């Protein structure tokens, strides 16, 4: 019951926030100094032709009318037409979504599976050589520009050492598309070579993307574990002779993880933000690369579409994190 109230509560904010986001992007897109219609019409268009085009697109209607239609359109999945490709933006966006999702999930997986244990060990062996080394690495990890790290990785592993391909998601077409997630699809095809190829292409982008996220997770987990270790309940468990490994891996970890889970929203933000850059450098055919290409082509509608989609994804993730936190931390509702 408590959970249901919690979920309803959080969901109530979802719609207004998304609506607000759309208004925001609409406002931004109408601050354009240049005239997109003139651009679309081409260099040799006459004034009448431009005005006709403007009328056809409805750009001559009052702002609020345009806004209204824009919002309706988005809710129906219509983000307008790409000024460059003349295709529906929604098609472009959703065809590239799986690539970004795959990369993001692999990055999340890497960061948590590697980051959390490192954070625990760093805290338990506080001030040891390992701890200091890790702290230096994590602080550095948050100071490195993702695009620079990506280029350095490429320079070292792809160009100089030749261990991995330079960029892209696969050589050729990749596996036959079933889910759109190449890792799964290549397994479904039972083709070892294609699977290897997919993994090889994924290593560098995934590592680059997960680096700052991993650093953040190590830091937060370390802090959470330290807090827990210094708590009275750990002292009590120690005094009552509960085995040390049980104290750390069961009791301390659970408390520390509650704090870390709430940071997943933050981490997702990092992953989306850096995703744009990483995809651009590695030519990874996802939403981020699409956004970058749209920038270069001044495709305003496409940029707005990308902003809304990534914004909504981010909002949803935070919503889920919020709800999860409310469920796993019994103190929340009490």
């Amino acid at each position, binding site marked *: 019951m408590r959970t249901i109230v919690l979920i309803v509560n959080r969901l109530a904010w979802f719609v207004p926030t998304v609506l607000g986001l759309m208004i925001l992007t609409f406002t931004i897109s109408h601050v*354009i100094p240049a005239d997109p219609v003139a651009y679309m019409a081409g260099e040799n268009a006459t004034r009448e032709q431009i005005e006709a085009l403007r009328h056809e697109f409805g750009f001559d209607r009052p702002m609020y009318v345009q806004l209204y239609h824009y919002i309706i359109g988005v809710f129906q999945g219509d983000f307008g037409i790409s000024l460059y490709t003349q295709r529906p933006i929604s098609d472009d966006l959703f065809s590239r979504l799986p690539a970004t999702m795959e990369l993001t999930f692999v990055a999340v997986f890497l960061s948590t599976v590697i980051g959390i244990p490192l954070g625990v060990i760093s805290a338990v062996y506080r001030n040891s050589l390992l701890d200091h080394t890790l702290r230096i690495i994590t602080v550095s990890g948050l100071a490195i520009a*993702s*695009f620079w790290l990506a280029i350095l990785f490429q320079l070292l592993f792809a160009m*100089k050492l030749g261990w991995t391909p330079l960029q892209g998601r696969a050589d050729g077409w990749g596996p036959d598309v079933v889910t759109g997630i190449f890792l799964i699809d290549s397994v479904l095809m039972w083709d070892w070579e294609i699977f290897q190829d997919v993994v090889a292409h994924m290593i560098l982008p995934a590592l680059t993307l997960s680096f700052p996220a991993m650093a953040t997770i190590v830091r937060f987990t370390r*802090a959470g574990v330290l807090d827990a270790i210094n708590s009275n309940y750990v002292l009590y468990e120690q005094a009552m002779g509960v085995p040390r490994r049980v104290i750390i891996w069961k009791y301390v970890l659970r408390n520390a993880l509650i704090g870390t889970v709430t940071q997943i929203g933050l981490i997702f933000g990092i992953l989306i933000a850096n995703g*744009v850059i990483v995809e651009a450098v590695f030519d990874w055919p996802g939403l981020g690369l699409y956004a970058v290409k749209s*920038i270069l082509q001044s495709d305003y509608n496409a940029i707005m579409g990308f*902003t809304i989609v990534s914004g909504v994804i*981010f909002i949803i993730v935070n919503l889920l994190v919020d709800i999860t936190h409310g469920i796993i931390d019994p103190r929340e509702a009490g």
Partner: protein
Amino acid sequence: METARFLLRKLASDRTAAVGALLILLLIVIAIAAPVLATHPEDVFEFHPSERLQGPSAAHFFGTDRMGSDIYSRLLFGARITIAIAVIAVGVSVLVGVPIGLVAGYYRNWVSDALMRVSDIFLAVPQIVLAIAIAQTLGPSIENVILALSATYWPFWARLVYAESRSALNETYVEASIALGASPWRVMVLHVLPNISSAVIVRTTIGMGGTILTAAALGFLGLGPPAPSPEWGRTIAESREFLPEAWWYATAPGLAIFLVVMGFNLLGDGLRDILDPRIRRSRDD
């Protein structure tokens, strides 16, 4: 003056914070003294195609770029751009966001709710995504980068100050002063502001680092000051097609960004340990 001296003494004793402070000082010195420190100051505008893509040497510490310009000198001038963007963008967002947060925190009416809703919407999207949208519509220039960064950063401060104000306002001594008839202005500036100032200072320092990274990313994507600007992100983007041979071309500006951001992060961490020792001491001791 007392507190300043105390602060300096504490900073000196915390090694990592001292390193951070030194790096920042270095950055400021370089930015100011760029014309003097640069070996080829004219290379910010001029180019010498015959000397392009040479490796590091005595004449060119970090080699030359695709136009034959001295990378070292351009890097030094790029420091000016970096500082300008960081200071102005963060400064504006703080100057806008903090008062908004204070006011929203003090009054409990529809205005403060509305302000926080608007902030939430901005914060619902990762900063760089919105900044890209704004910078792209306005066109590539240093002013537009600053504008895009400020416009997407102020809500963070508004939210932070709002939350801190709320808890500060719950303190008994604040309640007392309100009961004694202190005006809202007085309460906000004299009571609430000093209490939240340490949190703001710490976040500002760390925020500088993050802003520089975002600004460099915008420059890398081509949304920053256009050619021939020596902006660091742009330089890295330019270097890509000449890799792996011209490795110095990408390494130098990247290293510069790294050192500067590290400096701010270390300093910020150190400040946090000093100014907020009661809060989360275990975080980074």
